[in-house]
């Protein structure tokens, strides 16, 4: 059985600067379970990219293996995608990014994919400061292999089969902060108002951007014993801050003196406006971000929002001093030193 999306276009659909409607940013029809949080993430990505007016073909969709890693099928049909192997998306994304640093790398992974088999690769791509958006669709279970506990499951919770998580969980946001990620956020897939601006900010951010997206698995983890069920998250989520994304061209109204706002200017000139719910919340402090996450967790709450951003971050290619021309576009005359040079190398070896 194959699914096909209707190609019917509403005439009245709003167009972005490129003259494209959000339908131009859609992907194939989803085959995930109806109501899966991962589909909400796909929808948010479609909106974010449309609103940012990015040409879809300048995006590369990367993923590992899992339900979440299938999601890139379901957005951005005109972008290349690569569903790699379980847990190893970070290295493949690194290589792709080496080949062409000017494309946008949107990567999707699961909590099993990133926090278990791929923990090593996750840690190292953060360290490497690769310019990419790394999203984890975090449902606290393995979806694709039918509901085993994940390393992100809170200690003491049970999966659908009644098996209890006996060990401490891995908090990927804390890990990302500790390893030096320059943009760290946590969102709830069901809160599009929060997710879309954060996605937009992450895409604009020139450096490693990590978003842990709590994304309930309606099939294997939507039961009362779970801390990743839709209802549980709905009830326990607290927003640390509300983030607005202000594109470059919009006038930024002055909020000077208003202690409730924080305007953060990104590399490309766009602005992240953070409205603080918690007066003390400071998105530029790596250390307090970690403490805040832990304190909320102790209270049984999930702190969401933009947790940390360093707008001055340097990415791998800045550090490597890579040529501005993408490496995959350098021609033979630049790459190959030619016969004469080889003759002199030969001579040096006699």
């Amino acid at each position, binding site marked *: 059985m194959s699914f096909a999306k209707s190609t019917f276009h509403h005439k009245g659909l709003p167009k972005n600067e490129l003259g494209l409607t959000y339908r131009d940013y859609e992907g194939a029809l989803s085959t995930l379970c109806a109501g899966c949080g991962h589909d909400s993430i796909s929808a948010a990505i479609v909106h974010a990219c449309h609103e940012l007016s990015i040409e879809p073909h300048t995006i590369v969709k990367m993923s590992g293996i899992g339900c979440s890693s299938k999601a890139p099928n379901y957005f951005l049909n005109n972008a290349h995608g*690569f*569903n*790699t192997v379980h847990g190893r998306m970070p290295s493949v994304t690194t*290589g792709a990014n080496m080949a062409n640093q000017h494309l946008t790398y949107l990567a999707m992974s699961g909590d099993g994919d990133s926090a278990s088999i791929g923990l090593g690769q996750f840690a190292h791509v953060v360290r490497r400061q690769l310019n990419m958006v790394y999203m984890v669709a975090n449902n606290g279970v393995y979806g694709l292999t039918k509901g085993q506990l994940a390393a992100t499951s809170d200690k003491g919770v049970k999966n659908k089969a009644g098996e209890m998580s006996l060990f401490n969980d891995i908090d990927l946001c804390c890990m990302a902060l500790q390893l030096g990620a320059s943009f760290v956020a946590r969102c709830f897939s069901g809160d599009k108002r929060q997710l879309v601006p954060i996605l937009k900010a992450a895409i604009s951010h020139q450096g490693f951007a990590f978003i842990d997206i709590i994304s309930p698995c309606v099939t294997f983890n939507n039961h009362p014993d779970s801390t990743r069920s839709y209802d549980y998250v709905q009830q326990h989520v607290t927003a640390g801050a509300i983030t607005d994304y202000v594109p470059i061209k919009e006038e930024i109204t002055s909020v000077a003196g208003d202690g409730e706002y924080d305007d953060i200017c990104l590399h490309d000139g766009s602005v992240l406006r953070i409205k603080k719910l918690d007066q003390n919340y400071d998105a530029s402090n790596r250390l307090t971000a970690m403490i805040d996450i832990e304190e909320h967790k102790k209270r049984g709450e999930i702190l969401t929002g933009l947790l940390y951003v360093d707008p001055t971050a340097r990415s791998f290619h800045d550090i490597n001093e890579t040529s*501005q021309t993408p490496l995959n576009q350098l021609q033979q005359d630049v*790459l190959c030193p030619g016969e004469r040079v080889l003759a002199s190398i030969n001579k040096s070896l006699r």
Partner: protein
Amino acid sequence: MMTHTKINDFVVKFANTNGTGSASANTMFAKAIMRMGVPVSAKNIFPSNIQGAPTWYEVRINERDFLARRAGKCDIVVAMNAQTYSLDVSDVIDNGYFLYDSSKPLSDTLTSQNIHYLGIPIADICRKEFNNPRQRQLFKNVIYLGALAALLGIEFNVIKTLISEQFKTKEKLISANIYALELGHQYAINHFSCPLDYQIQRRDLINNRIMVNGNTACALGAIYGGATVVGWYPITPSTSVVDAFANYCQRLRVDPASGKKNYAIVQAEDELAAIGIAIGGGFNGARAFTATSGPGISLMAEFLGLAYFAEIPVVLMNIQRAGPSTGMPTRTQQSDILACAYASHGDTKHILLFPDSPHECFELSAMAFDLADRLQTPVIIMSDLDLGMNDHLTAPMQWNDKHKYDHGKILSMRELDSLLSFGRYRDVDGDGICYRTIAGTHPTKGAFFTRGTSRNQDAVYSEKSSDYVANMQRLERKFDSAKSYLPKPQVISNDTPSDVALIYFGTTSQAITEAVYLLKAQGINVNLMRIRAFPFQSQVATFINNHAKVFVIEQNRDAQMRTLLMSELNLAPDNLLSIVNYDGLSIPAQAIVDGVVTHCNQQQEVS
């Protein structure tokens, strides 16, 4: 004692301690002989250890160009490691020479052998002449080099020039080294009758050959082949491939105007990531490679399967060492053949290339990038420690500026525009090789989803049996098409007809000319074929079928190449015999001769 002069045909072995700086003096010794026009080969025999352990450096000098490791004992041992004295003494042939540091007397048990002892109080000389402890250590090596020059009749000027070249920019070091060299030289002249009966005499047998190790040549091949993305993880003996690549890139690949790098090298967290990075680069249209050895190959297997099935070009340089497991990390072998040919689960096969010299390391490495792009699949260079880390006399590396990179079937924006529709895995040309597009090429055409799961020819996920089977058959067709792009086997037939043949590949080649010569002396004529690539071309089966007895020579216990030949070419096992050597050292000609002769004798007894 009876002596007769041996000219340009003997083996000198240096016994040193790791970390004492002997490598450069030893290399200069070999290079000086080359510069006197005499063929020479050198092998490092070193432990898997950083400092303090014994190392050996074996130099074979042979004007007939028999440069493989010679079986048996050495003619001269330069013994600079007291801990291995007894081993080293027993390694000297009767009437051979044992040069040692006589600052401390040798024990009586050692002096009882039927060999000549050449004692030079090297440590004493150094203590007297130099104040700095590091100099005292380093100049020991230069002193025995000077002494050897006198003892073997190596032209003093040749070594002096080598020293001047080595310290090109440091005038002070040149004079100090030459002073040490003269100390040794003079001591030998004053105390021994120089030259000995072993002598180097100037010849003109080197022509334009160079001396270089295979890893450096692979690295240069990668540069000439246009590689820009490297993911790697350190492992002996492959590390120096990436070291050399990085060094040459700094010289040849930094844009002089902007100071920006035309390459990116990522030292990964492990081999999984190393090949993942290379695959990401290949997926996105860059020429990418990784270098590794056996344990790394094991870790890379899953990814190799992905690259095979998703059809992504990537080059892997496997510098083989002795396995299994961590095996003997600093010893050589050719034992990853089956692991590489079929790396990963499912029906997976990979292109293998077998260089036999640094010259070919260069050529095949550069070619590998064209092959990978053309065939959209991994290409594995099967080098080994002996080839990779030892200096070899080899034909100069060759590049033709007329050669244009073959990027294979990549569709440009314009080509996509003119296409009605694009399907990533459609076999448009019937050769099993499809057209691909690179991310970012076209706003509305050509995007597709790369995956390791089954799909139809338009790259859409499909578990339909017919789609899967069609895809697997096409991959088989592609593997068959690959044969016409791969380097052909090299066939050398004897003048006289022969029903005995040798098949060999990679570093086993070094022993072949000598083996053929020795066999001929025993009345056995052989025909030869050197395999250069897998999958095997039709010539391989024809050659085997044309001979009654075919010996496959290889450096592993289980005769892996023979297995591969049998299974891939559907051959009966009877006339495919095997000669193997798997002690971690490279195969000597004598082992081949013994293998052939023993079998031929057995046959005679039977008949």
